[in-house]
């Protein structure tokens, strides 16, 4: 399955696997979870982050139970506030 990942406003340069704008497209196994998908990347330098799959928030405790679907779009974003 193919999924697209958007890393919003990363600290420093985006980690390997992302382009300079923080976009990545990856192939994942069927029945892979969101946690499996995120594990493909080194996100350790990032702050605690929040995740959307399409428009649905997947809280941290649910990431290893949320099964991905083909064509899903993952948005990874920090706890930013508006201004």
């Amino acid at each position, binding site marked *: 399955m193919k999924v697209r990942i*958007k890393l*919003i*406003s990363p*600290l*420093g340069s985006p980690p390997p696997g992302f382009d300079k*704008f923080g976009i990545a497209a990856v192939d994942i196994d069927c029945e892979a979870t969101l946690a499996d998908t995120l594990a493909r990347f080194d996100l350790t330098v990032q*702050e605690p982050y*929040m995740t*959307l799959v*399409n*428009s*649905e*928030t997947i*809280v941290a405790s649910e990431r290893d139970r949320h099964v991905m679907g083909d064509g899903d*779009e993952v*948005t990874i*974003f*920090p*706890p*930013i*506030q*508006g*201004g």
Partner: protein
Amino acid sequence: MGWQQKVLRVDLTAGTAKQEPLNMDWAAKYLGQRGLATRYLMEEMDPTADPLSPENKLIFASGPLTGTMSPTGGRWSVVTKGALTGAIACSNSGGHFGGEMKLAGWDMIIFEGRAKSPVYLLIQDDKTELFDARKFIWGKTVWETEDLVKSRHQDPLIRVASIGQAGENLVRFACVINDRDRAAGRSGVGAVMGSKQLKAVALRGTKGVQPDNPKAFIKAVVAAQRKVAIAANSERLSKTGTMAMMDVTNSYGSLPTHNSRDVQFRNGDKVNYRAMVTPRRSDGQANLVTNKACFACTIGCGRISRIDPQHFSIQGKEQYKSALGGLEYESGFALAPLVGVDDIEAATFANAVCNEYGMDPISFGGSLAAAMELFEEGAISEKDTGGLKLNFGSADALVEAVEITGTGMGFGREIGLGSRLLCEKYKHPEFSMSVKGQEFPGYDGRAMQGMGLAYATSNRGACHLRASPFTDDFTYVRTEGKAKIVKDSQDKNAAVDSTGICAFAHGALDLADFAKQIDAACQGEWTAERLVKTGERIWNLERQFNLAAGFTVADDTLPQRILKDAAKTGAGKGRVSELSVMLPEYYELRGWDKKGVPKEVTLKRLDLA
């Protein structure tokens, strides 16, 4: 003392300016800026007065940390009864004007009455003088005004806060602009200034601010500076400004689009941060040039852009061809998705015109979006608009509309009424996406239930800065717990807005960090707990002003679209705002009765009885 303990009172009717001591009892209870100026306003004016009458007062106010080395300590506020809302208005600005006011030795400037003819005020430390603005800067743009005043008084370091033609023409969402592109933006404070025939305030200060305990102050400030310097939020704001939010709200489904008929914008990738930094095909340059910081700020969230020189909006208009203030999230959302426009250069141009003529881009965008809906629904036609085709998505319409609104030409005068009066005039009040007459910022209250409650209860009308339910709202589409999050953050933000420090430092500093700096700068035992109580006191004082002005529980609401029309997509798909569930809990937490009136016990607890 962090305070200079001096107020300048300017009677525009009499043409006089007098010094008076700051009320230090009030300073101890309301700090400065938003809180202290509201205390003065409540004491000195009838809240039922017409906001555009001489009976309204206009207060420029600094905080105890404004003008100090405290990180981001350059904030100042304009407090008055808002021309857009008729409610208490406090618009907070950055730049260098606030710091300069403090360095000139003034905590506050209170303007009262109305000048017989247009004037501007020049302050050079203790020396103050009103000058005739006729045949000089009246009728000029904000940018021209700033240049002319500096030139006439032969001092390039003078700081200027002024209104453009929008304020002179009483556009209901006119703002006060300082340092070319920093705005006391919301609620129509610029229209109040225009109604007083006060064109500009020019300042030059050469004094310092003397903290009460310099050694403790420097220790507290250095610790705070270090926190701000290493905070992830600071790095992000420096790099992307606030525009990173566009992708978040668009992905989540809380991006007000097409006058809030939609919550996601199909062409969001054309008007987001990535679009700002991607080199253009036309000239190989990116829209974003660099960032910009305000007084004492080490973050630098401000955006400096250059519009594509080949873009249709700036042909023959030299003033837009150099670097100028760029899009931030709020202006970006309002001048692009909200009106359906996917042309980032047109949105940047519209933002520049808002700065040049002195208009709030959020309310301009909201009013134009309402006009577009009126047009597309047939409530108005080209006959009404003077031939302007106000279709969603039209960059041509955006570019022309912003110019005629700023200059008060043709249908621009109608847009300048603000969405509420505009939609009432054309018999479709339901098209106005506003609370208490003030247009929505860039968050939809269906996916973001907490923000919906924050809009409904904001004392100055719909506002994204009065409360901070972002993290919970981006995690849970639910009503549970929102009332407490909104209430608590409203109190904290009211305190921060009264210190002289920027809300963006709040991302790195907790209230204890604020308290240590204030405690060292000012006499008195300042703690985080005292700041929270001060914020709650300010919130209730603002509420008292609004109740006295005639607002009721019926005004703590949202447009029917948000309450009855379910979101079509996104996290809130199928949901409406459940305000009726959250509001009673909010009143209870506030210690207000069912009509939203603070109970006697609440007022006594806050020393407001």
